[in-house]
């Protein structure tokens, strides 16, 4: 099922002569973990903000092309529809918090969608548990470190279970062990029927789990497909460290540590 359909999307910021995005086409399906990668300034955040309608609602820009969410044109959706269909974590979650306590922050969007009180409470417990941050529940938002806040922002976006989840650099600020957990969480969300789009540089643990990677360069999509088939194009963006390994007689590059280990053991047992 197609949840998100972008056709011929071009975006040009006001007073800018260059197009930030040019002719982007994208079909996003249910149960898909997609990574959008590309060099700094290639248009990743612009694409994320355009899908949410933040461009042009907050940031003025000229927009060509169409964005359809759940089969409806973005401009025809009400604000309530957008909140229900899309979950979003921006690059700087700290700019978007509104409450004092972590649990209030997570409850906020649920309250606005008129969830019953007991459902909100159980939802808070579930989501904190899922993201392994139950210990943060009664902490003050202002006291959190940036990495903790990042995970609270993810919880807030995921709590109402919107079908489409858009994360702008979800792995930033996260410590390496939590990075592995988080990659697994994003994968599970996709498995459970969400379309998860992660705009990300840190691909070490996320790429092996992704169904698809879209590579942007200068506002254009230059590659789109299964991660393994595109390792050559990702080289210029960022490869997982183990994919940078190369040895004779093995053409297929590893994506994960386990794959690399298997390849290595096989190769050296043959010598």
């Amino acid at each position: 099922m197609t949840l998100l359909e972008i056709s011929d999307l071009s975006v040009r910021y006001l007073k800018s002569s260059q197009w930030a995005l040019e002719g982007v086409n994208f079909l996003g399906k249910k149960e898909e973990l997609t990574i959008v990668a590309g060099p700094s300034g290639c248009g990743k955040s612009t694409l994320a903000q355009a899908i949410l309608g933040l461009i042009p609602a907050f940031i003025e820009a000229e927009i060509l092309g169409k964005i359809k969410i759940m089969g409806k044109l973005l401009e025809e959706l009400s604000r309530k529809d957008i909140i229900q269909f899309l979950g979003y974590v921006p690059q700087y979650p700290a700019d978007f918090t509104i409450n004092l306590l972590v649990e209030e922050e997570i409850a906020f969007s649920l309250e606005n969608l008129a969830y019953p009180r007991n459902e909100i409470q159980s939802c808070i417990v579930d989501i904190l548990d899922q993201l392994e941050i139950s210990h943060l529940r009664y902490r003050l938002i202002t006291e959190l470190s940036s990495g903790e806040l990042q995970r609270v922002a993810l919880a807030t976006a995921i709590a109402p279970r919107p079908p489409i989840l858009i994360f702008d650099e979800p792995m930033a600020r996260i410590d390496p062990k939590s990075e592995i957990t988080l990659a697994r969480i994003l994968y599970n969300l996709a498995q459970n029927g969400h379309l998860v789009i992660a705009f990300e540089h840190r691909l070490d643990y996320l790429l092996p789990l992704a169904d698809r990677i879209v590579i942007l360069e200068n506002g254009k999509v230059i590659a789109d497909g299964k991660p393994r088939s595109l390792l050559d194009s990702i080289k210029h963006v960022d490869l997982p460290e183990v994919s940078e390994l190369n040895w004779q007689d093995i053409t297929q590059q590893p994506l994960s540590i386990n794959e690399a280990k298997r390849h290595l053991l096989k190769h050296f047992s043959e010598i």
Partner: protein
Amino acid sequence: MITISIKDLSFHYPGTKNYILKSFSWEREKPGMIGLLGTNGCGKTTLLRLMTRSLTPTQGSISYKNGDKKDFKRETNIVYVPENARLFLVGPTPQKDLNRIIKDQNHVDVLLKRFNFTNLAEKKLYHLSEGQRRLIAIFIAFQIQSRLLLLDEPTIGLDARGRELLFHLLDQAKHQGKIVIVSTNDSRVFPQLDELIVIHKGTLFLQGSPREILFELEKKTELIPNQIVRLITSLEEEISQKIPHCLTSEEFNRILHDNRLF
């Protein structure tokens, strides 16, 4: 040459009794690149802010010595780039920010050209992406004639090229005799550093060179090293045999090509 000495440092934010740092002591005399590691919320950013003196220690002290000279003006000698790099830049363009530090326009032009920033230099800061802004902020921070440079999560939003540039600048700064302290969760930065400090529950838990620390990290802490180190550790476990320890994929490739894995 600058010496930093942190003695018995403890800190909690006013209004709370929750100590973020407890009896933290550390000293550094030699120039170099130092990494602060620790799980989210362990006190990395707080330590950096204490070093800039924008926070005051609850107990203990942080002192700086500038060679034999007694005076150490922190305003001119410490540069801090916060995680939100927007706060570091003034604008309206990267060029204007650079001009505030380097008066000689020719020098500015040469720098911009050498580091491939010419096309970004004239753009308004709000037209740049987060990653570009961070890269520019870091680049400018390195141009300031300081002794101590503190970078909070410098790799967020940086692509492979940006990270290369960061490593290059770090190296250059070391040769200029600076101490650079990088708080980071990006495991790819770990191998590039001279010294790693692992903070755990507010105290200094491990300290040493990446080669010593990274191979111990997973066993001793809640942190994990970069992928190559993990690969080597897990290979060693599987075949119960020592294999050469290295930190980066380039080093490992060299070992693979020489076929001297076992």
